């Protein structure tokens, strides 16, 4: 097999989709399953270009339902498998994603959000937040990293594999069409050269040895006969999810201590929020910045403290309040007031945020 795809580290100037493909190769994914949909197509294109050189494989399926299930099949067989999708593809993939929750299958899903509902635009949105965090017929036992930069895309795609295989909850890298298609600089690296240990996958089904003699039977269930039986399973999953959540939660808080208003945003919108905060601070306004990196689990305790302290939040997102629902649920009981900028399917600029804060402070 060829040598490592990335030796040491180097600066690169890439589209976000290329970055994801590089990260999946560097993160030692074995196989990608996928079905084309804009704006994630080039993840598949670049993966298929690189994969054969490193003994990796690709399977194009007949739709996203199948791409999701084949990904889970690959994982069960012991491969580090992943898939990528967007918009209506994300909708279709909710069923395999729910199965991954129920059976504790550690798959990685990369989502490049596009406009919705339905086909809508192929361009951009943050309208897949509710679906990615709590989609399917389940309780949201998932890990969702919302990326903002190409560096995030690289870092968190690698991390997603480790998180998924360590905790056995399906793990999502939630990007968007802007991040997918734009070019900016990024440092790509060999994770091991940075001391990042990559978890090796093992087969969940079809393990070696005979049952009853060499090993126990493997029994992975997604169906239950009684309500009580299911209740026990779901509650024990909830308990486990809650117990590992503090280890998984990530966020970025800046200038919040003396802030009179804190801009709360996630993903690519947090770039505009950060620019706005820096500009307003430069002009003497006491503005803070809070960005959850994980939307599931959500940094609720951390945000509640910030909210209680500042007493005012400005929630900004490219959706009609999907992220704000997470914010409100998680800080329920806080006396902080919430202003909003909701722009479903449209980008947000720092100028808009600056203008809004100047008008309200």
């Amino acid at each position, binding site marked *: 097999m060829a040598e490592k795809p990335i030796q040491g580290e180097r600066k690169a*100037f890439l589209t976000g989709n290329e970055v994801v493909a590089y990260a999946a190769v560097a993160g030692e994914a074995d196989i990608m399953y996928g079905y084309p949909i*804009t*704006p994630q197509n080039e993840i598949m294109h670049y993966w298929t270009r690189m994969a054969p050189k490193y003994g990796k494989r690709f399977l194009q399926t007949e739709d996203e339902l199948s791409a999701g299930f084949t990904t889970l099949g690959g994982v069960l067989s012991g491969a580090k498998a992943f898939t990528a999708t967007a918009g209506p593809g994300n909708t279709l993939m909710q069923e395999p994603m729910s199965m991954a929750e129920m059976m504790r299958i550690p798959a990685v899903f990369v989502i490049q959000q596009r406009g919705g509902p339905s086909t809508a*635009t*192929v*361009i951009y949105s943050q309208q897949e937040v509710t679906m990615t965090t709590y989609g399917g017929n389940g309780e949201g036992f998932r890990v969702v990293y919302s990326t903002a930069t190409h560096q995030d895309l690289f870092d968190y795609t690698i991390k997603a594999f480790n998180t998924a295989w360590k905790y056995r909850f399906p793990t999502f890298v939630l990007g968007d*069409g*802007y*991040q997918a*298609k*734009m*070019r*900016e*600089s990024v440092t790509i690296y060999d994770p091991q050269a940075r001391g990042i240990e990559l978890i090796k996958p093992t087969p969940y089904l079809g393990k070696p040895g005979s049952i009853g003699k060499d090993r126990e039977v493997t029994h992975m269930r997604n169906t239950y006969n009684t309500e009580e039986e299911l209740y026990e399973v779901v509650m024990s999953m909830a308990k486990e999810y809650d117990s590992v959540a503090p280890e998984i939660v990530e966020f970025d808080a800046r200038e919040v201590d003396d802030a009179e208003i804190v801009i709360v945003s996630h993903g*690519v*919108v947090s*770039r*505009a929020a*950060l*620019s*706005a905060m*820096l*500009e307003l601070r*430069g002009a003497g306004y006491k503005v803070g910045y809070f960005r959850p990196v994980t939307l599931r689990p959500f940094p609720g305790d951390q945000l509640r403290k910030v909210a209680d302290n500042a007493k005012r939040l400005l929630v900004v997102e490219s959706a009609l309040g999907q992220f704000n629902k997470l914010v409100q649920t998680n800080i329920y009981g806080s006396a902080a007031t919430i202003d909003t900028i909701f722009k479903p399917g449209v*980008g*947000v*600029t*720092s*100028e*808009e945020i600056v203008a809004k804060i100047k008008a309200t402070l």
Partner: protein
Amino acid sequence: MAKAVKIVLAGEGGQGVQSVAEILAEAANTEGREALYIPNFGVEQRGGVSVAYLQISDEAIGSPKFQKGDIVVALSERAVLRTQRYVDGNTTFVYDTSIEGIEDQLPKNAGRVLAIPAIEVSKEEFHPRVFNILIMGAVIGATGVVPLDRVKAAIEEKLGYKFQENPKLRELNFGALERGIDLVQKAQ
């Protein structure tokens, strides 16, 4: 905080505005500056106005798209109409003189409006295919956002394999680039 230089390039599909933005972004990146380039994209397979958004800065760049451009280049009638929204009092608006009867539809609020005969000059003095390189020259002439030698190096990086086969292409491209700078400076 130093503001990013914001550039919008718009033209018909095939006029090469995306290549211009990509090469300028790469030139800035190799110079060690921050650059962010994003194309517009939709469901159309062909036709339609092609728009490229480019930002170059000394600091981390915020949102990928922006409200107003420092320089807005429109290379067709439809592009002139489409790009009005990116123009304000600080914008240099550049359009091609071959677009007929467009005078009434040029943005009234632009800081300045420059008409350059890029299509005509590229056809008569060079070759229609280096039209976009001439436009690239106009952008760097109007903004000074990336030094000429960096842009030449980025073009070399992109087209070097073609230049090796035919060194005259290098002359043609670099000639068009410098002529673009010249045109925009004369227009000012």
